[in-house]
């Protein structure tokens, strides 16, 4: 017993005061990208050629656009661009309400908006989520799971991951939705009491990510169930996930 008390004193209070304070990110952390002013030279497609997931393309005005729903934040495009038009920032906030919003063409980004008033009345202070991993590699899962640890302590916001869809207000889906998880995902979704919400976490769940186009997967969750919030990353940083959910609950 004394040992336990001693350990408790040693470990101390470790919950980070988010959202009052912005969490410090590692200096090499790769956050939300932006496209700087300027235009591509000639028919250069270096960024699109090097991108492992097809997230880069040439948009209006001969400028690159980057689809955060596909991006795995490897920075290869940033290095490849001779005109230095692509720049990854340290900004970890990047959840969005639609896939279209995730396509970035300049320095702006439209943050996710809160769910509607009626849903907010129901879920704004208490949100129970069921997690379904559908072909996820366990990185998105791990960085979702970690939200339950004292550092993040998502329970203080009234958010909890529950053991049955019957107890849940919504789903948090990871993975490209493998063919072999399609049925289980559909059944889990149908078992939610209505109204319900769906959150897709990670490049795979948004677009299929690295597995997009494989016949073994369904290129993300949105083709199977309606998705209300998209959280990009490979995997998203835990703060990105938490910030996205809080924004969606209307708590930020």
């Amino acid at each position: 017993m004394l040992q336990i008390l001693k350990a408790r004193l040693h470990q101390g209070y470790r919950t980070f005061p988010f959202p009052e304070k912005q969490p410090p990110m590692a200096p090499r952390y790769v956050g939300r990208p932006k496209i700087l002013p300027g235009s591509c030279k000639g028919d250069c497609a270096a960024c699109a050629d090097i991108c492992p997931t097809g997230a880069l393309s040439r948009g209006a005005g001969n400028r690159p656009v980057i689809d955060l729903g596909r991006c795995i934040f490897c920075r290869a495009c940033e290095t490849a661009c001779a005109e230095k038009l692509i720049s990854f920032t340290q900004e970890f906030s990047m959840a969005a309400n639609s896939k279209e919003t995730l396509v970035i063409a300049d320095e702006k980004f439209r943050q996710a908006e809160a769910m509607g008033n009626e849903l907010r009345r129901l879920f704004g202070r208490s949100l129970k989520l069921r997690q379904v991993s559908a072909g996820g590699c366990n990185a998105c899962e791990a960085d979702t799971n970690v939200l339950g640890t004292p550092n993040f302590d998502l329970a203080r916001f009234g958010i909890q991951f529950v053991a049955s869809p019957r107890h849940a207000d919504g789903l948090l889906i990871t993975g490209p939705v493998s063919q072999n998880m399609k049925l289980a995902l559909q059944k889990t979704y149908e078992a939610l009491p209505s109204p319900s919400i769906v959150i897709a976490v990670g490049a795979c769940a948004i677009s299929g990510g690295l597995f997009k186009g494989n016949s073994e997967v369904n290129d993300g969750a949105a083709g199977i169930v309606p998705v209300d919030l998209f959280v990009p990353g490979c995997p998203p940083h835990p703060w990105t996930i938490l910030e996205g959910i809080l924004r969606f609950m209307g708590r930020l």
Partner: protein
Amino acid sequence: MKNTLLLKNGSSAKLENIPVIEAEGFRQHLNVQIQKGGRLSALFLVPGDPQSGLFAIVSHDRTSEIEVFSCSCGRKFNALTPIMPQAHWFEREIAEIHGIEMIGHPWLKPIRFQPKAGQNVEIIPGVTSYFEVKGDEVHEVGVGPVHAGIIEPGHFRFQCHGEKVFHLEIELGYQHRGIERAIPASQPQKIIRLMEAVAGDTSIGHTTAYAMNIEALAGLKPSQNAAIIRSVALELERMANHTGDLGALAGDVGFLPTAAYCGRIRGDILNTTGMICGNRFGRGLIRTGGVGHEIDADLKKAILDKLLLIEADLRSAISLVWDTPSVVSRFEETGLVSREDAVAAGLVGPAARACGVAVDTRLSHTFAAYDRIRPELALGRQGDVNGRATVRWLEIQDSLRIIRTLLNEMSCEKAGCSAKKAELAPDSLAVSLTEGWRGEICHAAITDSKGNLKSYKIVDPSFHNWFGLALALRNQEISDFPLCNKSFNLSYCGHDL
């Protein structure tokens, strides 16, 4: 032609130099090697018409050699499993993907519920025949694919008598994403990213194995500092996962202090990897030919300082486990796997070492920077939950020693990455072994006549170890399943690929 081709870890050979033995001779030769203490690291088929090539990769730990041989295989093959239980999962895999009839195999159930190569038919996962136990008061419990927590999917079916489990059957495949099939058709910049996602919690282990194969085929040699950074990252990966699992084990027996502390400390270790490459799971760190990020003097000091804090927190959190008799009594004698079963089933990693089986690829088939520092072999007294927990705690402490020693040995030169454009040797096979935190990872790459990847085989340690979990549940209380499961903590996607 000689019957043997012996390779060192992370080296390659021309396909024409790989012995091709006729089927019965192949069985006999493989059996002799396994009897002599060899381990079947991989057994896979490269399809061809009319004959396919069946390749065996046998690791000889005492001599640090990897033996490769093959046989040409038609539509039928006399199964190895009856004489060599550790082949059973491999043969099920080959039968499922390629439709080879494995004559004499006890039960060729699908392991992934994937269509046969080249076919595109809808398969309902999990629908197959199962073991059945009949009798009064015998009942069946099915769990999954979707589990109660934030975990990957899989289906577990228990045959129980009251609370006692007679048998646990594990059906996987829900995570199948077609990785092996996608590799030959993908660009190198995508393949290395696929490797990072084979099992997201083992990014460094798998990516290192892939990089070693490409380096062997392209004649590249990473710098000494790159080798050191690879080992440092691999040990951080080991520490993070072992720490998380020790916390989860404590949580599963209701001992919340260690559960809460370890969950957070695991994050601190992941953040240390994040200090090196920006990503908590080491994405982008390992590159063919070297590493993608440098550790300079300032970062080295920052890592070493952080490790001091982490070590103090870890010692405070984890010593509580073995200071608390009620926790130890729940760990001891729970989920017991005998040494004999572990050897026969071909278990690897901490699951095998807990049973007293001395397998550690870092020691037997040295790679990265493990020639500069010898890891301590961590063995358990018996293969129960306590054994597996003990091995993990010993390994965490040894990882700290390895990381510190290696960081202090780094020169001030850049680690760098020697690969510009890697031309791969044509018609060759390369094989690599690494020791991920779950155990041995085996990758085998085969190139075609133009030097393109023709076939790529990945064996995650979970492929060997899932059956070990089934063995651990024999005669256990069903309520101990979460505890047993967490003590192995195997990968679903690493298995399903």
